[in-house]
């Protein structure tokens, strides 16, 4: 097991970038006035984020609610128009393409949503939910062959092929999430954005879906952007992990590195906050609880956005925006105090 994962990470070193995000910004305007709306403020959901994802890699993106992790996913999917920055997919900047030019990318980039209850159309049968995108993108033109492929995909995702004639309400949450995965796979994607794909599931079902995602990654050579708030799940699935706070990326490193040697005070706080399911380990663990609440992204703190909650902050932290710098090969941190 460990031998294969080592081989994979070695391959990844030489692999080329599939996705490159450069200085991405997404502001949502806050307006006032009914007839003549004027912009009174901006919610800076994503405020200048850069990273890349290599072919075959899984990048984990973690952070608490409102940190902008979902917005990044939606910007890559072009469900949201970026305010500034570039998103290169296989060398092409998606932000510069028009709707027509985006069509092939909409097939190659797929998404699995969090809520298996609201992300499937309740009035469509499973077969239609999977068949329609295949028909639209002309992946399999022959309807009979399409049905065959749908049955095959359902089986791959651990579902009974007979589910093809069922409606979403006839299925449990775990089964629906498998349908969501099959729907992503039916487009023969290269890159899948998993947005909290296992968060709504019970632990025993969650483990089934995590294993399925791992198996599919190997079988189809997929690249994942795995967005989640649960660090233990992210660490389990990802090669590298990026931590976000209030629209900014604060740390990015190899999965083992970030958990064994976290540098940013926020990453440390996040790791400390997660209880380990073992009473003896917990009794001997130091619990430093980060103070305060997450500030509003409409009016973020000056300088480093984490400084009001940070216990190593110095005077300068409230004035200067920290640079995201590489302190060790592959380990990026946005904190001048610790680096």
């Amino acid at each position, binding site marked *: 097991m460990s031998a294969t994962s080592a081989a994979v990470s070695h391959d990844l070193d030489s692999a080329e970038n599939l996705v490159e995000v450069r200085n991405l910004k997404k502001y949502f305007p806050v307006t006032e006035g009914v007839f003549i709306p004027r912009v009174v403020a901006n919610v800076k959901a994503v405020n200048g984020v850069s990273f890349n994802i290599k072919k075959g890699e899984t990048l984990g993106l973690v952070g608490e609610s409102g940190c902008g992790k979902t917005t990044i996913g939606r910007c890559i999917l072009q469900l949201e128009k970026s305010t500034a920055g570039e998103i290169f997919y296989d060398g092409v900047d998606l932000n510069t393409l028009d709707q027509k030019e985006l069509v092939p990318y909409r097939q190659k980039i797929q998404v699995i949503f969090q809520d298996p209850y609201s992300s499937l159309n309740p009035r469509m049968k499973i077969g239609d939910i999977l068949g329609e995108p295949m028909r639209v993108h002309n992946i399999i033109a022959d309807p009979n062959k399409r049905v065959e492929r749908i049955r095959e995909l359902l089986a791959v995702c651990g579902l009974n092929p007979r589910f093809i004639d069922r409606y979403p309400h006839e299925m*449990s949450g775990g089964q629906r999430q498998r349908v969501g995965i099959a729907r992503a796979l039916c487009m023969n994607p290269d890159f899948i954005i998993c947005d909290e794909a296992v968060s709504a599931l019970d632990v*025993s079902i969650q483990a089934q879906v995590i294993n399925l995602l791992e198996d599919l990654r190997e079988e189809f050579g997929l690249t994942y952007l795995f967005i989640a708030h649960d660090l233990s799940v992210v660490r389990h699935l990802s090669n590298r992990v990026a931590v976000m706070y209030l629209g900014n990326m604060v740390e990015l490193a190899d999965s083992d590195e970030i958990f064994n040697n976290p540098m940013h005070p926020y990453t440390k706080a996040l*790791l400390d906050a997660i*209880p*380990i*399911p073992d009473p003896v380990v917990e009794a001997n663990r130091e619990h430093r*609880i980060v103070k305060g609440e997450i500030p509003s992204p409409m009016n973020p703190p000056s300088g480093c956005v984490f400084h009001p909650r940070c216990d190593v902050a110095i005077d300068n932290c409230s004035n200067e925006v920290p640079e995201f710098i590489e302190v060790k090969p592959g380990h990026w941190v946005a904190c001048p105090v610790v680096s």
Partner: protein
Amino acid sequence: MSKLLEIENLQTQFYTSAGTVKAVDGVTYDVEGGETVAVVGESGCGKSVTALSIMQLIPWPPGKIIGGEIRFDGQNLLELSEDDMRNVRGRDIAMVFQEPMTSLNPVLSIGLQLMETMQQHMDISDEDARKRAAELLQKCGISEPERRLDQYPHHLSGGMRQRVMIALSLSCNPKLIVADEPTTALDVTIQAQILELMKSLTKEMGVALIVITHNLGVVARYADRVNVMYAGKIIETGTAEQIYHNPRHPYTLGLLASVPRLDQERGTKLIPIEGQPPDLSRLDDGCSFRPRCRFAQDRCAQSFPELTNIEPGHEARCFRSNEIQDLREVS
């Protein structure tokens, strides 16, 4: 220590068009004064219905407590009149709900909600109630408590609202707090804050706590004793250490193997529990975990195993609980 709460053979059922759902089917456990007891399980296992049964907040129709006893301080709560029960609720036993967004009244100020509860149960003047409300908010880590008293729930963040809920639950000096997934809706750093707060306050005030959760990490960090529920029954009970280090029911074993751990080496494959939880309206006489169990035998279909004693305080509801550790090694 004396037993504060004793639940014996509690049965709560829901009568629906799809049949009778045995949501809680013979649950027995107790809570001692000042201790923290966790009830763990996945959705639909009956853990929340057990909590609502203690508070007698089961909506009829469709739900009804059809059997068993809930003795609190020696008194069977199920025999109390609705008026007497209303005096117990909020005063002796308080509840903290999961959803801080919906469990506070949106049209009443924070101060009024706290004062109303206190004046319902205690002989206290407006002025004293307001003063005590501010103190409670302060204790629960809310800054500028005086100003917050006049604010409404929508002014506060989720974490803040849950702090208000905790202040509310502590307002009448209860002996027991029932917390139903108190931190599930919150972010991890806020979850840690709230749990630390509950732990320190219950310790300081000597309040017993029942925490209902699906998060095994939370249980490990905070609970003295643990009850694991599956399909309406407690299938294993013991101290946190017994449950985590010497699990004797295949379901507990499966739960522990299916969560990724931060202190585990990366690349270890998770071992999920295959299949789905059963439909609670269509249970047979046999063990309800049998269809998902790796160690099931013929006798598991015949009858539901009783809780068998493993060591003092540690019981499991499995025919093979004594050999389960060896079986795990083999498979």
